[in-house]
């Protein structure tokens, strides 16, 4: 028998390889440490600072913070300012409307994906993912073109003789809503597809086999099972539309103030950083509350349907 290969030592690894091996073989947290450091420094700490700024009076000089003293005034001012209330309420309404409309328009697409063949599915995926790879500005600009004075809508309506003067669609909250819905549609559709495809095949055929109509299958089987997808999609769309900046800015005109544009204005233009900080904090807290509500509703719905069939 030839010399056992195992008696041959493994090839000599370089020093750096040996060090790397030590760090990796322990199955410890080492590989993640650089990321943890970067995330703490660039996200966690700044966030804490943001918090602190909201609760202090600061003096800014030449782009740097010179002094900082504790104060609750910004918070109380914000909470008692009617402008804040209307602005946030507008953002909230817009976000909720967007979410609901995205759901109403997006769910049928997911359903089509479910019952569709290979090419239908491919087409849906391309149409849904491609917009996500372009920037928000590009997508919003398209609506500027469509809804503008000489845009698609008006030109078509005028050439058809239905109106004499261009409709003023731009710079209204309708324009913002339409733009928001179309732009965030993919974000609602993708999680729905992901969740639905996990359940596909047998379950739906079984239901049809048992005599349920297509509509019935949809109502009693597909809908409850896709609840987690609805929850995820709704959460994502809500967060994005609640905090979106571009669409209201471009489609809503200069006087349209929502939370994000207000923060932008406070931080970049009027340099009222403490105000900007408080606004950001309120934005985050309210967003979190709604997300929790969505999660609870989804949970309830899932449990209700599960319990009902038991």
């Amino acid at each position, binding site marked *: 028998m030839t010399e056992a290969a195992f008696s041959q030592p493994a090839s000599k*690894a370089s020093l750096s390889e040996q060090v790397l*091996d030590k760090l*990796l073989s322990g*199955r*410890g*947290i080492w*590989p*993640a440490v*650089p*990321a943890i450091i*970067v*995330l703490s420094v*660039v*996200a966690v700490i*700044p966030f804490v600072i*943001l918090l602190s*700024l909201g609760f202090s009076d600061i003096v800014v000089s030449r782009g*740097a913070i010179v002094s900082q003293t504790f104060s609750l005034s910004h918070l109380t001012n914000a909470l008692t300012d009617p402008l804040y209330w209307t602005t946030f309420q507008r953002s909230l309404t817009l976000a909720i409307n967007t979410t609901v409309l995205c759901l109403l*328009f997006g769910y049928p697409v997911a*359903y*089509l994906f479910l019952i569709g063949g290979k090419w239908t599915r491919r087409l849906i*995926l*391309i*149409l849904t993912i*491609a*917009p996500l*790879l*372009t*920037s*928000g*500005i*590009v997508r919003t*600009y*398209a609506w*500027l*073109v*469509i809804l*503008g004075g*000489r*845009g*698609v809508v008006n*030109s078509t309506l005028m050439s058809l003789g239905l109106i004499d003067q261009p409709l003023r669609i731009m710079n209204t909250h309708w324009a913002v809503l339409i733009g928001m819905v*179309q732009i965030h549609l993919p974000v609602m559709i993708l999680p729905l597809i992901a969740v639905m495809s996990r359940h596909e095949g047998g379950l739906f055929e079984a239901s049809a086999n048992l005599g349920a*109509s*297509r*509509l*019935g299958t949809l109502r009693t089987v597909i809908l409850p099972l896709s609840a987690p997808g609805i929850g995820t999609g709704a959460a994502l769309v809500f967060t994005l539309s*609640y*905090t*979106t*900046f*571009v669409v209201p*800015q471009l489609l809503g005109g200069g006087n349209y103030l929502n939370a994000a544009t207000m*923060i*932008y204005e406070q931080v970049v233009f009027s340099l009222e*950083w403490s105000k900007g*900080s408080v606004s*950001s904090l309120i*934005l*985050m807290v309210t967003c979190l509350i709604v997300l929790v509500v969505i999660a609870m509703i989804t949970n309830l719905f899932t449990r209700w349907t599960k319990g009902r069939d038991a």
Partner: protein
Amino acid sequence: MIKALRTASLGDILGIGLILFVAVFSLLLLIAPSVIVILISFDTRAFVSFPPEGFTLRWYAEVFEQTELVGAMWTSLKVGLMVTFLCIVLGVPTALACVRGKFRGTTALSVFVLVPHMVPGIVLGVAVLFAGALVGVSPSIWLQAISITVFIIAVMVRTVQSRLVRLDPSLEEAATNLGATSFQSLRTITFPLLLPAILAGAVFTFVEGFDNLSVAIFTHGFRDRPLPVELLALVQYTSSPLVAAVSGVQILLAILALVAVSMSVGLDKVNE
């Protein structure tokens, strides 16, 4: 199909028909704006109007002649590449630690990485700007890159994680049994098998680095305006089809990226 129609009731047909109608309408809604924009980008007239007249590529040429636009595109390209690089270098080892790690905080680590992503982009941007002001770090291309990285790294980590979880752990065990060190096993077995997921993650992180506005708008320096910021200004002050041409370029790049991903990984995998 016919058989299905025969056995279905009228209410059934109407109901499903309505749903399918809405689905098709939504799909058209998704694509119509892009199509219109591309049509307009060929318009010969110097203002935006529909329907477009004539056909010219002059706006596309002008895109690459305007120095600020070109400069912004280069900046965005650089930011995109930096973000992708950082996400790979920081994110892949993190995914490895989350999935293969034997310490107590693996779930906590996963959640920790996700946190910056859950925060609205503008809030993160504002926070970074303020923190920078406190320590004297002013907005720059680096600040942009690092803040967007922190924002989007969760996507890379999650993509790699889900591929890693489905990778048979006995593959790495077999490699070690055959004589490989941990590092060798990672290099020769794990990494090559993770490559599709890393590429998919890279596409999304690059796109975010390139297209992000919410974080970049607060962290970009005066001299490094990324394309989205530049476009924002342009849109508000220009009325020529120039912006449509820029959009056309972006749409084309998006389609190319999609084709690349679908050929390497397959579109369905991306959606997980």
